[in-house]
């Protein structure tokens, strides 16, 4: 087991390393002098020369790459051109709405998906199953921004139940800030519930046919108990995996949803950065988010070891 943990850890490091390399390549692929691109057309020749030197652009590519790695190891993600602040601080400033948006979306998605998925599996082939399966597919087909626009119109403008946009003013309490997330999180939750529903249903079908469930049934246990205690408990692990991975994928949805709801999160920052040609911010955001994804994956794998005693490598 220790060997597995070490191997898995080294694997994670290797993937991280590749992530960094890919980001390096993407930014270098951008046509033109990266320094000029980063500084924008307003930059003077002197500014560009200074940045070229700072980024080490005059040196061979491999040295540039090593330099880039060195900077990263020191936790330096560079400086935002538009915001005139370190990229890391800009990202940190916007982590809160993105984190809670993702968290709430997951909770909402699970609250929809788990019961529906379990029931659909239990009553497989029934009308409920068919409707649930189709609805799940429908939810996965709706563009989240479209749903968001409709929700704003109905629940924020017409009924005034929720704020239209933003994340509260300077003195907004934590609770007030979170209330700004209800509508976006519901939007994102519904759209991403599809995958979890389908997965829950499949995992449940899988275990419902297993021997120990049949045994439990034959022993005359109540249906509810059979489904929840025996089947669902065993289906839980693959389902949790999917929920974990969905959380990471939700960052994609957050990019769009944050923009629709004007939430000052990481996704919104990236979109603004693209429109502002703020390459250091794009680069930094890509790195941090991909690194988090790799890390979450690793943690999930490690959790397997703890949660499921059957997993042995």
């Amino acid at each position, binding site marked *: 087991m220790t060997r597995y943990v070490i191997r898995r850890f080294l694997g994670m490091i290797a993937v991280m390393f590749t992530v960094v390399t890919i980001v390096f390549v993407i930014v270098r692929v951008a046509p033109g002098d990266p320094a000029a691109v980063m500084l*924008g*057309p*307003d930059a003077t020749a002197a500014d560009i020369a200074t940045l070229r030197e700072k980024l080490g652009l005059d040196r061979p590519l491999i040295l540039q790459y090593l330099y880039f790695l060195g900077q990263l190891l020191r936790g330096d993600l560079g400086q935002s051109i*538009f*915001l*005139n*602040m370190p990229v890391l601080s*800009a990202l940190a*400033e916007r982590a809160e709405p993105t984190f809670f948006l993702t968290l709430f979306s997951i909770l909402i998605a699970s609250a929809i998906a788990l019961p529906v998925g379990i029931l659909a599996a239990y009553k497989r082939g029934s009308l409920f199953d068919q409707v649930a399966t189709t609805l799940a597919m429908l939810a996965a087909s709706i563009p989240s921004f479209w749903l968001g626009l409709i929700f*704003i*119109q109905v629940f*924020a*403008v017409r009924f*005034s139940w929720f*704020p*239209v*946009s*933003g*994340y509260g*003013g*300077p*003195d907004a309490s934590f609770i007030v800030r979170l209330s700004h997330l209800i509508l976006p999180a519901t939007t994102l939750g519904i759209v991403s519930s599809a995958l979890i529903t389908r997965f829950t249903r499949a995992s449940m079908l899988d275990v419902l046919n297993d021997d120990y469930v049949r045994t439990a049934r034959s022993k005359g246990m109540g249906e509810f108990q059979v489904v929840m205690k025996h089947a669902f408990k065993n289906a839980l692990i693959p389902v949790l995996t999917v929920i974990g991975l969905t959380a990471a994928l939700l960052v994609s949805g957050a990019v769009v949803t944050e923009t629709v709801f*004007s939430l*000052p999160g990481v996704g*919104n*920052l990236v979109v*603004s950065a693209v*429109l*502002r*040609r703020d390459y250091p911010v794009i680069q930094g955001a890509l790195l941090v988010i991909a690194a988090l994804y790799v890390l979450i994956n690793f943690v999930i794998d490690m959790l397997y070891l703890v949660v499921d005693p059957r997993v042995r490598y």
Partner: protein
Amino acid sequence: MLRTLRYVGAAVAALTFGSMQPAEAQQRGGAATVATIGEPNTLDPMVSAGDLLGMITQHFYETLYTFDKNWELTPLLAEKLPEVSADGKVYTIPLRQGVTFHNSQPMTAKDVVASLKRWTDLASRGKLVAGNIQAIEAIDDNTVRLTLKEPFAALTALLAFNNSAAVVMPADHMENPIKEVIGTGPYRLKERKADQYIQLVRFDGYKPREGEPNGFGGARKQYLDEIRFVPVPDANTRVEGALAGQFDYADLLPVEAYDRLRGQSKTEPLMLESFGWAMFIMNNKQGMMTKLDLRKAVQAALNAEDMLAAAFGKPEFYSVDGAMYPKSYVWRTEVGTEAYNQGDADKAAALAKKAGYDGSPIRILTSRQYEFHYKMAQVAAEYLKAAGFKVDLQVVDWATLVQRRAEPAVWDIFITHSPFLPEPALIAPLPDTYPGWWASETKNKLLTAFNTEMDQKKRIAIWADIQKLIYEEVPFYKVGDFNALTAKSPRLQGFTASPWPYFWNASLKQ
């Protein structure tokens, strides 16, 4: 001899200010939330000329002069209007005493001199006069003297303007880029969270001028505890926020929203007539638009009426007018405007052929921050295509556009707009230095004559020649005049609609 230069504003009968509300005792306190069109890329009103920046920064940085409700010049940080020597070259400016900066330091002539020098170095409007300035000096602690090489009629208007503004900063806090925002205004910057809010709080050390508020001038009252500028780049979100009562004021809304805003409990529409005019600036320095015939081809191809209709909807929201000033202004003339609003594809094609148009795309730079720019661009693109042009529409955010337009190699046309300015010399694309770089001998001769002439009637005549020249040389294309729609909550009182809305003097009904 003392000249008051009153004509600067007296000439402008009506840039229609919304009327003040019925006098009701205004309450002190509260925080007003103002939805703006986006995040400014700086808080230094000298280095950038955007209306958004001017609107925000005027609350904490002040100028020596400003405009009253009739667009007449009125002193702000200056004690009174300047004394101008008989030859029109020496301006002596007495300063108000007892004015303190937000860091509690008193404002002195030393700060003003340093600020004016910074302005002539950095600000686009300041650079206009930089070459004409002989000296800026402090006579004593409370008096500044500005000496010109040649008379310049528009100087005081330039000093009064709130973007690319000659604001006064403390002499020891004027780095570029600015590190700490310290001004003299009635509100001071408390916190700026990029893309989230700019929070201003009342400056307790502020001493308003004597008397009553009068436009941007007179006493500036500090009813509100706080003003919060919230960037909401999507126009429809600003409308929705206003409808839901989330914003006390929402800037620049799409005119289609007018009907939705009427009869609402939490917001009401404000219409600002003849707010401004839209223009397509041509790149006169580099690329295909340097050819006069090609600029004329574009002029012939465009249909201003359709552009305005697409951008502003109903006819009551715009007017198809080629003159550089609406009817109520003394600068009004229709000379040259027959070249306006042609929409003649054949003529345009012939002109393009004459110019040797090679089929490379016209690069039009525009932004969606101002949705009407983008709509005009789309209509223009269709008309240009109909005349045989290729069009490359580059849609970027406003800050990027402002950066890119400075680079003559990357664009052919960009779209912008301007309010009607009290003094024609302030019109942005007139000077050589403005991106677009309209530099022609005839223009320089006329503009110099216009700027040095102190006689109002003669200036009006010269202005007509300049307008004629604009249609002959086509340095830019005027699309037409438009009204602006904004919205404010009924709670917000004592607020005066303006192209650069300000929130001192405003209060919130509790």
